[in-house]
């Protein structure tokens, strides 16, 4: 029985391989940025004395210019509020690509998107001083949400802007709108509700429209039009934001080269003409596109036309058109049409125009050519404000995060400080011009440094991680599918697992040595890579050594049809993860596939009993359907209000919850002997917890105490599971399943507790289908049937489905945090964080955990199961089914990672694919952990002496 613990060690080893590869992938893929809560402050010019110090005793009056000069020469001075204030109308035309704004008279047959905005060229020609048109370069990801974030904060958005409140959509950082509102000025919003969701409760007046339906070209635009002309006449606002969506939607639906696009652009042209005509003199008009769109290929129809999200030049090149009736600063060179400017620059420019300091996280440079003409001293003041703010940000970011190396940061900070000091020496226009270009170069350097860590994926480690995943999955697949079951005990009794683990340990040791000797820089990646490769090589050697057995098994005959079908279904469930619509509807898809797999198995048996079991299973799946959540992309269901589930249970839900738990414990307790008492007590505690805490008459404190009691009983029972009674592993496994069920009901709360019961029931029905599978005579073959991959695939599909079946969805905004607090706030205890992490983990991934822990039952369940056989055979069967189950989840994770790599610049990458990857990794981890618990339980309880059977 040497192989007993080798099985466990091998499962641990496999889990390590999968999880380490996923970790490596995540480090390369999940771009993260630390969100700082700092807010830029400025000191009004009035509070400075003429000597350039705050609250100085010198009371001699002097001109602003002199005062600014003095302040500039004092390099330690804070940011100063700029004196001149304008108003700004910011018109965002979604997806306004730069070449839409070009006008070429000689073009006799323009395409549908060419020459449609003549007003821009006409204005620039007519008043070269008053109008500017530039290329407005966006950074990837070029999706509207990320772009709006970037425009208002002046920063480079990433997927995870790490901050205190991770789930909410609201911007947590300082931004232009906050700066304006803080000053007591008014902001008005018209159009797309992305703005309202990012910055709620900041608007003086807002008319935001839900705009998810990308096939509607006109509603939002017409609504904005109906309001904007009145708003332009009013004078109570300081910034007016209007967001037009029509062009973007036309691009998504038809592509740029389509008559609809011409119509939308013509409408935009008419609007701009009217704006320019009626613009009050103190208002600066900025018309910007947040991103471009992909080129159309007019020869053939392609799905990707007119989309955006990626980093191609066409998607990144938007347009910026500025108009001010009093005239802009800048000379011929600045005025040049089509110069490239960065989108990050808009935030600091807007702030300067409105007389506010740049927002704290801004990395932008001032766009002087689109600011009104002003004296040299004022220009210098703005420039030095900007530099001071960037310096502060560099210092603060260095304190909070180690993403950028300290040397690099220190170098940049020194450079900006020096530049601030130089401002005092600028006297003439010529000096100023040189100074401006110096500042621009410096700011480009700063942006570049941050861009490297925030915007660029680490594709090398992503590809390495994919390779490692593929290696692990491929060789383990061959081992589970190829090596005959009867050989497995011999393989694992040999020195295969110990030698593998020793070589992994040697790898880790070598990497640490190399790190100690400073040959290696990134010790973590080196360890993951080397151990993964070594493990791949060792499993490869194993496969080569047993090649005769593998070929023999494969040549003996193909698997049953239902077996092949189940594998295909699992493969299909992984493949569809590359399509966003299937991810959105994954709950329905998984239930469809599970039912199909079970249906084919039942068709193989074809008895009335099996058909009835299938129907019952389907009925359970239908019942879980009503608990499935909604996500925003599922239009109808979301707008019907089903998406926002409240934590409070209705009376009917409470009765259902109590009834389901009572039924489960009433039925289960008779069959699990003395362990039944523990189950009953825990169940009663859980029921009392809901009943006492329900409604306005409930007592929350007592309810929490009861929940704690339930957890205590569950934990005690879990410890008691390890008491050996020498009667096989089936009973402890069943009890562990029941305990996980109770834990799930507790964290799910009364409203969703019945889903856990339904999941348990569906698993039970599936278990009962297993023994009626046709077995061809002898026990040897029956064992091969019991642990074939169709069962593992079915079980994995079921476990994945019940993630959705218990009301979850793979979106970050959908996560309810109430589960952490049902037994009181754990943050008051000494182990607050681990407890809340564990509760959250069970809440989200309790189903894969429960199904993982009960996987060995597939081999052991029933009178004809493996439990009647000798312990060695039992162990081999359990190990093989556990590994297959784990492999199913590994395959799904691999597919998720692959699809995230393929789509890494897709429009929906942050909304759909990345959350799916995160949740799938969580499920995989839970399944691996559960399978491990199940396997250890089995190994522990199976008697070790060899019976003569």
């Amino acid at each position, binding site marked *: 029985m040497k192989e007993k613990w080798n099985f466990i060690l091998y499962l641990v080893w496999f889990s390590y391989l999968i999880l380490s590869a996923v970790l490596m992938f995540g480090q390369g893929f999940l771009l993260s940025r630390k969100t700082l809560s700092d807010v830029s402050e400025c000191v009004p010019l009035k509070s400075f004395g003429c000597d350039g110090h705050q609250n100085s005793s010198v009371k001699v009056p002097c001109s602003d210019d002199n005062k600014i000069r003095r302040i500039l020469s004092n390099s330690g001075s804070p940011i100063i509020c700029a004196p001149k204030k304008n108003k700004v109308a910011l018109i965002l035309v979604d997806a306004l690509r730069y070449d839409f704004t070009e006008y070429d008279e000689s073009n006799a047959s323009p395409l549908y998107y060419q020459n449609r905005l003549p007003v821009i060229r006409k204005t620039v020609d007519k008043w070269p001083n008053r109008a500017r048109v530039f290329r407005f370069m966006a950074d990837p990801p070029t999706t509207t949400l990320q772009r709006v974030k970037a425009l208002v904060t002046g920063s480079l958005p990433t997927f995870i802007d790490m901050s205190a409140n991770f789930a909410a959509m609201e911007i947590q950082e300082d931004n232009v709108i906050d700066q304006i509102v803080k000053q007591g000025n008014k902001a008005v919003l018209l159009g797309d509700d992305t703005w309202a969701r990012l910055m709620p409760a900041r608007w003086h007046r807002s008319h935001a429209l839900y705009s998810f339906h990308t*096939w509607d070209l006109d509603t939002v635009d017409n609504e904005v039009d109906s309001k904007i002309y009145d708003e332009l006449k009013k004078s109570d606002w300081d910034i007016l934001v209007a967001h037009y969506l029509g062009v973007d939607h036309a691009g998504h639906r038809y592509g740029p080269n389509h008559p609809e696009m011409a119509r939308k652009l013509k409408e935009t042209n008419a609007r701009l003409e009217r704006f320019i005509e009626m613009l009050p003199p103190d208002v600066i008009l900025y018309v910007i596109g947040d991103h471009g769109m992909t080129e159309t290929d007019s020869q053939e129809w392609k799905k990707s036309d007119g989309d955006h999200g990626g980093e191609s030049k066409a998607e990144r090149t938007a347009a910026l058109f500025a108009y001010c009736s009093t005239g802009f600063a800048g000379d011929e060179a600045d005025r040049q049409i089509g110069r490239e400017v960065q989108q990050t620059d808009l935030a600091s420019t807007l702030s300067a125009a409105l007389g506010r300091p740049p927002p704290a996280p801004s990395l932008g440079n001032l766009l002087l050519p689109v600011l009104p003409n002003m004296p040299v001293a004022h220009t210098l003041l703005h420039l030095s404000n900007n530099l001071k703010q960037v310096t502060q940000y560099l210092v603060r970011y260095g304190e909070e995060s180690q993403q950028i190396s300290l040397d690099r940061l220190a170098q940049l900070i020194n450079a900006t400080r020096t530049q601030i000091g130089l401002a005092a020496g600028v006297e003439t226009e010529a000096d100023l011009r040189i100074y401006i270009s110096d500042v621009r170069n410096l700011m480009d350097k700063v942006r570049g440094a941050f861009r490297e860590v925030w915007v660029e994926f680490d594709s090398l480690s992503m590809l390495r991680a994919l390779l490692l995943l593929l290696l692990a999955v491929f060789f383990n697949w061959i081992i589970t599918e190829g090596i005959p079951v009867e050989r497995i005990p011999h393989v694992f009794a040999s020195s295969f697992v110990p030698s593998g683990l020793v070589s992994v340990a040697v790898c880790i040791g070598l990497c640490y040595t190399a790190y100690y000797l400073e040959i290696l820089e990134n010790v973590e990646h080196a360890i993951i890579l080397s151990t993964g490769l070594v493990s791949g090589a060792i499993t490869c050697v194993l496969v080569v050594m047993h090649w005769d057995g593998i070929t023999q098994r494969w040549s003996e005959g193909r698997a049953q*049809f239902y077996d092949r079908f189940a594998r295909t279904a699992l493969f299909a469930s992984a493949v569809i993860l590359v*399509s*966003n*619509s*299937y991810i*959105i*509807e994954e709950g*329905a*898809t998984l*239930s*469809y596939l599970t*039912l*199909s797999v079970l249906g084919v198995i039942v068709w193989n048996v*074809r*008895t*009335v009993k099996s058909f009835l079991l299938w*129907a019952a299973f*389907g*009925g359970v*799946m*239908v019942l879980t*359907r009503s608990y499935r959540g909604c996500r925003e*992309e599922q239009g109808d269901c979301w707008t019907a209000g089903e998406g926002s589930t409240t934590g409070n249970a209705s009376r009917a839900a409470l009765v259902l919850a109590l009834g389901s738990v009572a039924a489960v414990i009433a039925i289960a307790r008779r069959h699990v002997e003395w362990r039944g008492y523990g189950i009953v007590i825990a169940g009663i505690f859980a029921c009392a917890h809901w009943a006492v805490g329900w409604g306005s008459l409930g007592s929350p404190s007592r309810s929490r105490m009861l929940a704690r009691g339930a957890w205590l009983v569950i934990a005690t029972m879990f410890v008691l599971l390890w008491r050996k009674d020498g009667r096989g592993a089936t009973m402890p496994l069943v009890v562990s399943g029941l305990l996980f069920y109770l834990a799930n009901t507790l964290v799910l709360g009364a409203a969703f507790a019945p889903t856990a019961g339904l999941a348990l029931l569906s698993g039970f029905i599936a278990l009962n289908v297993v023994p009626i599978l046709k077995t061809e005579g002898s026990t040897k073959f029956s064992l091969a049937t019991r642990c074939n991959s169709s069962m593992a695939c079915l079980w994995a599909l079921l476990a994945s489905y019940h993630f959705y079946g218990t009301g979850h969805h793979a979106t970050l905004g959908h996560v309810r945090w109430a589960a952490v607090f049902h037994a009181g706030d754990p943050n008051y205890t000494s182990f607050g964080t681990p407890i809340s992490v564990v509760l959250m983990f069970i809440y989200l991934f309790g189903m894969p955990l429960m199904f993982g822990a009960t996987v060995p039952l597939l081999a052991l369940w029933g009178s004809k199961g493996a439990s009647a056989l000798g312990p060695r055979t039992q162990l081999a069967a359990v190990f093989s089914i556990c590994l297959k189950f784990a492999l199913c989840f590994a395959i799904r994770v691999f597919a998720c990672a692959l699809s995230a790599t393929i789509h890494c610049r897709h429009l929906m990458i942050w909304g759909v694919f990345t959350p799916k990857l995160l949740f799938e990794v969580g499920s995989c981890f839970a399944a691996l952990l559960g399978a491990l618990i199940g396997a250890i339980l089995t190994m522990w309880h199976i008697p070790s002496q060899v019976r003569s059977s």
Partner: protein
Amino acid sequence: MFSLNNHLELRRVTITSLVTCIYLPSIVTVISYKGLLYSVGNASSFYVLVLIFVAELMKSFYLNSSNEFQVKKKSKNRASEVMKSIVFLLGVVFCFFIAIILFGAPVLDHHDGTLLLSSLLTLLTIFPLIAHTGVESAMQLLFGVKIFSRDTIIAMLVNNALMTVCGAWLGAVVIPLDWNTPWQQWPIPCYLGAIGGYLLSNVLTVSKVTLMSASNKYPALNFFVNVINRLHMSK
């Protein structure tokens, strides 16, 4: 599965399959030209089912015409047989209806569409079997008590049934996609998928018989016969 020994049966199989290959595409073409293709889920398109019913009935009369001189039944017996078949068919329609809902069709609405789909599936799968062999044999076949793989006609009918169900199953694949096309409405993809599967099965039968006869002369064609044999559902 098919053998060239029984020429009479083989001819019947070929001719019925050919007839199907002609009438089913014509029905689909006509309704799509009339612009009614996307309304097959409405109760108003019941006539399509009636057309298919009549066609299948004719086919089964043709298939059975030889058996009549073997088994002469009394007309009374015949009537009760018909009644039994109708009841059985209704039961099958109900089973299909339940199964489709379990697979994920809407529970509370679109009942007419689901019902039409289940009737279509019954018409294309179980109905020809019953018309050919009678209720008892069909049930035996369904529960795998007897195996009829020797009988060319029954083999063809079972093949058709399996391909039809597979077609309907595959049709559901396009429903979740976000293309917002009119043919993604429930139950159009499954409906058309079922028809497509049935048609494909018939086309395969015809081509296989043709190839088998031709391969007597040109043995090289046996390769294609084997390919088609693999495509046919093996149970």
